[in-house]
C-alpha cells in the first residue's frame, strides 16, 4: 500500500519469502525495555545463531550421498498431427507425433521433469560397490567449529549483553 502525505510518498518494501509476497509490519520498538532482564535476554539473539550454525551440521549427512541414477523422462515432441495418424516411438525413446506437410512450423520439444540430472549409473547385479577408501571429516570439523562458536557465545556473548544492559541502566 502506497501512502502519500505532505508531498512525501512512502513505498513499502516488498519482502519475498519463496512464492509469498508480503509487506512488512511496522516494527514496535520497546522504548527502554523496562530494565532488568539480565543476560538471558541475549538468548533471543543467540538462538538464531545457534540454529544457523547447526543447520549445515544437520545437512552434512546428506552431502555424502552418491549421485542418484535418475533417468529423465522422454521429451515430448509436439507438432501437427496428421489425420488418423497415431503416435510413433522415436529413436531416442521420445514420443514423436508425425508432422505432415512441408509448411509446418518447427517441432517444439517440451522437456519433462528436471533437465539437470546425474549420469545414469548402471551397476552389474552382484558386483559390489567400489571400496570405501576415505574418511568423512566434514562432520567432526563442522561440529567442532560449531561447538567452539557456541561455547564462545555462551561464555562471552551472554555476559557482554548483560554488561551492556547494566551499563545502559546505570
Amino acid at each position, binding site marked *: 500500500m502506497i501512502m502519500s502525505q505532505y508531498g512525501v510518498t512512502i513505498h513499502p518494501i516488498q519482502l519475498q519469502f519463496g512464492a509469498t509476497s508480503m509487506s512488512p509490519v511496522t516494527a514496535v520498538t520497546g522504548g527502554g525495555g523496562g530494565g*532488568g*532482564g*539480565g*543476560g*538471558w*535476554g541475549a538468548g533471543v539473539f543467540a538462538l538464531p545463531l545457534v540454529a544457523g550454525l547447526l543447520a549445515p551440521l544437520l545437512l552434512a549427512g546428506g*552431502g*555424502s*550421498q*552418491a*549421485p542418484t541414477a535418475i533417468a529423465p523422462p522422454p521429451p515430448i515432441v509436439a507438432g501437427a498431427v496428421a489425420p488418423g495418424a497415431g503416435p510413433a516411438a522415436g529413436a531416442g525413446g521420445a514420443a514423436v507425433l508425425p508432422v505432415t506437410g512441408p509448411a509446418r512450423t518447427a517441432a517444439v520439444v517440451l522437456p519433462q521433469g528436471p533437465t539437470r540430472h*546425474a*549420469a545414469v*549409473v*548402471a*551397476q*552389474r*547385479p*552382484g*558386483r*559390489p*560397490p*567400489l*571400496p*570405501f*577408501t*576415505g*574418511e*568423512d*571429516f*566434514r562432520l*567432526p*570439523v563442522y*561440529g*567442532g*567449529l*560449531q*561447538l*567452539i*562458536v*557456541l*561455547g*564462545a557465545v*555462551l*561464555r562471552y556473548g*551472554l*555476559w557482554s549483553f*548483560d554488561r551492556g544492559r547494566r551499563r545502559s541502566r546505570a
Partner: protein
Amino acid sequence: MRRATPVVRRSVLVLSTACFIAGAALLAWPFFHSAVSGYATGKAQAEALAAWDREPEQYASPPNRDMVLEIPRLGLRRIVPDGATVRQLQRYGVGHISWTAFPPIDPGTIPLQAGPAANTVGASATMDQASQTVGIAGHRTTYGAPFFRIGELVPGDQIILFYAGRRYVYRMDRRATTGPSDSDILDAGADHVALVTCTPAFSAAFRLIVFGRLESASASVAAH
C-alpha cells in the same frame, strides 16, 4: 526479568567450557586419526616391503597374490595385498580389489577390449562380477594416505606393478570421478590398471579413478 543468579552463571560457564573442550576434541580428531592410522599402516607396509625385498622369489610364484605398486612421480612404493576389504585397507592402506583381474601372465593374449578372461581374477569373484581391469584401491587421507596426491598424475606418468616375477609398466591415460556404486567403470579392458580412491579429499562422497594402460611387461624377480 531478573538477572541471572550466580548458579546460572556458573552453569553457563561450565557448559561453555564443555563446548570448547568438545569442539577442540572434534577438530583434533582428524589429525589424531590420520597420525595414528598412518603410523600403524606405515609399520605394516615397511615390514611387508622388507619381506618382499628379502625373499623376492617367495613372491614370484603364482599362489602368492601380493603385488608391489610403484608410482615414480609420487615417490610411492607400496605392497598391495589381495583384497580391498575395510580391514585389509586399514592395515595396508592399499589393496587389490578382489573382483578385478591381476596383471596378465602372458601380456600377448590381452584382448583389445574387455572380453574373455585373459588374466586371472580374484578368487572370490564369479565370472558375472569379474572385471578384466586390474583394480587397486587406496586410502586418500588416512592409513598412510597412499593415494593422497593421486590427482596430480598426468597422462604419460608411469604406474609400475610387480607381480608374479614380472614388471608391468602402465602409462596413466585418463581419470574419472563417479559414485561409489558405479563399479562398472572398472571395465576398462584387460590392458588397464585402475587406481581407486575417495574424492574429494576428506570426504567419501565420490570415487576418483585413475586409469593406466599397459605399455610393457618384462621379467623381474623383485621390485628394486
